[in-house]
């Protein structure tokens, strides 16, 4: 996101604001995995009273907020290898059971970042060209194929200004046809059988403006 406005009078959502927006759509009681990085911030905006159960693929069900430095336990980390905490009611499991949860369809939601997403829901978020000397996939593929809903939290444009919502992904896929909804700096977009459909635009934004930063047909739902 640049400091200069891309569209006059349209203030894009910051990452924090996108995270807050995602949090609004989370249903109480869901079991959710938040991808490493920005998606993790969503947890800060889901009220504890909602009793959402956060899953961390390294073996936590019921992950709490980041601990203060004094409470950091080197034995308790999350999938991003940051210090974690447990909520009351949490359970510890091993890696095969943890991915049985992911792959077996027991996650109500997984929120991931993305390099690209295509109009049929293909996701590319693990490698730029497949030619990296050492690409790193982690748990992204298992989460993407297994969760009941895959939502993305992302900006519309790459740092180089290229549209990330496209007709077809040019980057290596994480999983085909898995993405259901996309939360961006300018809109909330559903991936439907008919392609991209915006269900919400930020203040002042028009669908015509949105189309200019999406590399595939997009319309209002």
């Amino acid at each position, binding site marked *: 996101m640049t400091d200069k406005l891309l569209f006059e009078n349209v203030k894009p959502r910051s990452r924090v604001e996108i995270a807050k927006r995602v949090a609004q759509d989370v249903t109480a009681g869901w079991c959710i995995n938040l991808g490493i990085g920005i998606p993790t911030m969503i947890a800060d905006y889901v009220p504890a009273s909602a009793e959402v159960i956060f899953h961390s693929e390294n073996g936590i069900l019921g992950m709490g907020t980041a601990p203060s430095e004094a409470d950091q336990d080197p034995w308790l980390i999350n999938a991003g290898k940051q210090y974690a905490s447990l909520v*009351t*009611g949490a*359970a510890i499991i091993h890696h095969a059971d943890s991915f049985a*949860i992911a792959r077996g*369809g027991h996650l109500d939601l997984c929120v991931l970042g993305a390099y690209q997403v295509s109009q049929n829901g293909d996701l590319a978020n693990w490698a730029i060209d497949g030619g990296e000397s050492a690409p790193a996939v982690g748990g992204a593929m298992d989460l993407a194929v297994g969760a009941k809903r895959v939502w993305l939290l992302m900006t519309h444009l790459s740092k180089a200004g290229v549209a990330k919502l496209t007709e077809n992904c040019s980057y290596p896929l994480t999983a085909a046809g898995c993405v259901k909804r996309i939360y961006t700096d300018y809109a909330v977009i559903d991936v439907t059988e008919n392609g991209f459909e915006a269900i919400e635009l930020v203040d002042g934004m028009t669908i015509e403006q949105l189309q200019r930063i999406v590399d595939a047909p997009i319309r209002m739902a």
Partner: protein
Amino acid sequence: MIDKFVAIADAFEGVADGSTILIGGFGASGEPTQLIDALVEQGAKDLTMVANGAGAGGDFGISRLIEHKRVRKVICSFPGRKALVFAEQHKAGEVELEIVPQGTIAERIRAGGAGIPAFYTATSAGTLLGEGKPTEVFDGVTYVLERAIKADLALIEAWNGDRWGNLTYRSTGRNFNPIMAMAAELTVVQVQHKVELGDLDPETIITPGVFVNRMVHIPHGNPPKF
């Protein structure tokens, strides 16, 4: 607030005729006997029942479900000598039977819960029970392809449970219960002891609540003597 505890009368609301159901327990140990009674009461029929056996006799548990003619097909490893009602109905052609080796039935259920649609096992290769199944040779050994079992409903017995559905079991009452809890759309649990959230040590929970949909607190005591 998540609270999965319901009244037993509501435990099977919405369960349809023709459902595939998993029933935990090995012998009478860990069998969700009171839940089975409630399912008989609810009335669902034409069920495909997956369990280790086909009833321990008497007028309770699986035997009762079969006696009330709710089961169209039994998938099990060992019908059992005391499963007289089942034997009678099977002989009369009223109930189908699929015999599956005990380890294979356990693994098929676990696979169903873990998002594995099929796996290979050496068990039953070259035997009657492997006939007609695809085979593959890996490193010179012949293996049989087995499909996952996924169910509409699981009936589970547990020792302790909190309102999120976190469970522990008692001794060999554990048996099939934890894997069956993973493999159904609707998992219903009867727990001996309703405990407060946080009472169970996170490191010793056997079934995390994510696998559980409904719980009924039934302090029913010990399994019947057999």
